[in-house]
């Protein structure tokens, strides 16, 4: 792990102030920011203007990217990390944390995003993978990483590589929540099953999940992932957000669902309310009224590219 001192630029500590023991980039510090995002909505934005709309609607964080997943699907081609100028413009426009996407395995894009001071790097299947076998060694970075997963084994492999936050992959850019539900149910269902296993069976689980046995044992003991579990991929309505929260997600990412709808500000605000009040159907009914057209959705079977199949 990369731990480095972070003392003040000048002057000597006085009174009770002591910088000698300061360490940055510990697991607790990296996972800590994800803990603070719980119960919130992280919104995909492509420019500073959208970032302001997201912040004004109550987003806990924004995800900077060049094109939202729906446009990546439509236009095709290789999808890469955003232009640094765009990331910096978004950082300058809002005070909430800013995340940005790097390609799977593209550790140099991640280095660049770290140098820009983004608050989280999303090693994302939405972009075109840069490595067909290896993900980024995330322990080598000070910036925390979020990674997608479709099942528990994938989640644990990403955590073993240093991910400080896991999200379901879902099927980004479809406006169809079915894959996100499948992935959440798979991860949470397997966690429940692991907690029922005896100590000998945990080795079998580790083999089956292709994941380190120490992490499997930790889950058996605590009944949860060692990092927060958020939901992403295809959420388009307040009801979608509340659905995945009731299923056990701890926060939601909304990508194309907001800025591909007819009234982004209103829909964003409604999804924020729904994520907080996810167990209150009366409030969900109220915030779901008159939101205008949601983004156009897609059937999963008709897709040419399944983004969730990227990553290993």
């Amino acid at each position, binding site marked *: 792990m990369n731990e480095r001192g972070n003392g003040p630029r000048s002057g000597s500590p006085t009174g009770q102030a002591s910088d000698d023991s300061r360490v940055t980039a510990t697991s607790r*510090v990296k996972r800590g920011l994800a803990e*603070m995002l719980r119960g919130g909505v992280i919104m995909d934005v492509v420019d500073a203007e959208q970032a302001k709309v997201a*912040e004004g609607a109550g*987003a806990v964080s924004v995800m900077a990217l060049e094109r939202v997943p729906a446009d990546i699907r439509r236009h095709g081609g290789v999808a890469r990390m955003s232009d640094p100028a765009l990331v910096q413009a978004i950082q300058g426009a809002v*005070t*909430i944390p800013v995340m940005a996407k790097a390609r799977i395995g593209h550790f140099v894009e991640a280095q660049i995003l770290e140098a820009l001071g983004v608050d989280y790097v999303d090693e994302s299947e939405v972009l075109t993978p840069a490595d067909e076998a290896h993900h980024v060694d995330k322990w080598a970075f000070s910036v925390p990483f979020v990674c997608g997963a479709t099942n528990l084994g994938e989640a644990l492999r990403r955590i073993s590589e240093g991910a400080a936050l896991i999200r379901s992959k879902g099927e980004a850019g479809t406006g169809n929540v079915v894959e996100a539900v499948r992935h959440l149910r798979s991860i949470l269902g397997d966690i429940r099953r692991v907690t029922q296993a005896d100590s000998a069976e945990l080795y079998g689980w580790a083999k089956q999940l292709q994941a380190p046995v120490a992490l499997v044992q930790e889950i058996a003991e605590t009944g949860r992932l060692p990092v927060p579990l958020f939901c992403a991929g295809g959420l388009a309505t307040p009801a979608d957000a509340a659905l995945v929260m009731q299923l056990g997600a701890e926060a939601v990412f909304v990508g194309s669902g907001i800025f591909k709808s007819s009234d982004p500000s209103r829909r964003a605000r409604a999804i924020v*309310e729904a994520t907080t009040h996810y167990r209150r159907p009366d409030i969900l009914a109220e915030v779901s009224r008159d939101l205008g057209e949601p983004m156009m959705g897609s059937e999963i079977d008709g897709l040419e590219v399944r983004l969730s199949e990227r990553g290993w």
Partner: protein
Amino acid sequence: MKVGILALQGDVGEHARVLADLGADPIEVRAPEELAGIDALVLPGGESTTMSMLLESSGLFDPIADRLAGGMPAFGTCAGMILLATEVLDGRRDQRCFGAIELSVRRNAFGRQVDSFESDLDVSDVVGGPMRAVFIRAPVVALAGEGVDVLATVAVGGAPTPVVCRQGSVLVAAFHPELAGDWRLHELFLSNVGSGGDGPAR
């Protein structure tokens, strides 16, 4: 005792686990009616701009402000400290605070997430050695009123800057004791709840 946790957004579950461990009865508060019967309130870490907005839309802002003015003990960590302060120097224009403790605070005072850190911190009134303090995009106190006790400071640009403060029955910390496995600040807070928290906080 029943201790409410403002549960609009943030690390609510961690506070709930700590409070339950210490024998209190944690109650998640998302609606005004859930304030009834609580003896104290914890305001967790999270995104203060989001919580501020949800406090308005949920109708919670005014009833919580009334309870705080009536002396209800409160403990705010990070974003919770911002919400309890009188002034946010760099908040959104529409961001409202409770003014339950005379502090001007500055958000994200240490920089971005890569500058977030943990360190050992001596806190007055907390016995048994320094606490491990986890600062996540943390705020600091830019100015504390005369009635405020400063219980701990850290150096910011070489100057000691308050990060744990108390005024009456209101306790705030710029860091996250709920993340570090050290419950002594929560104990300090609860010891104040047991003693009634009567009388106005200011």
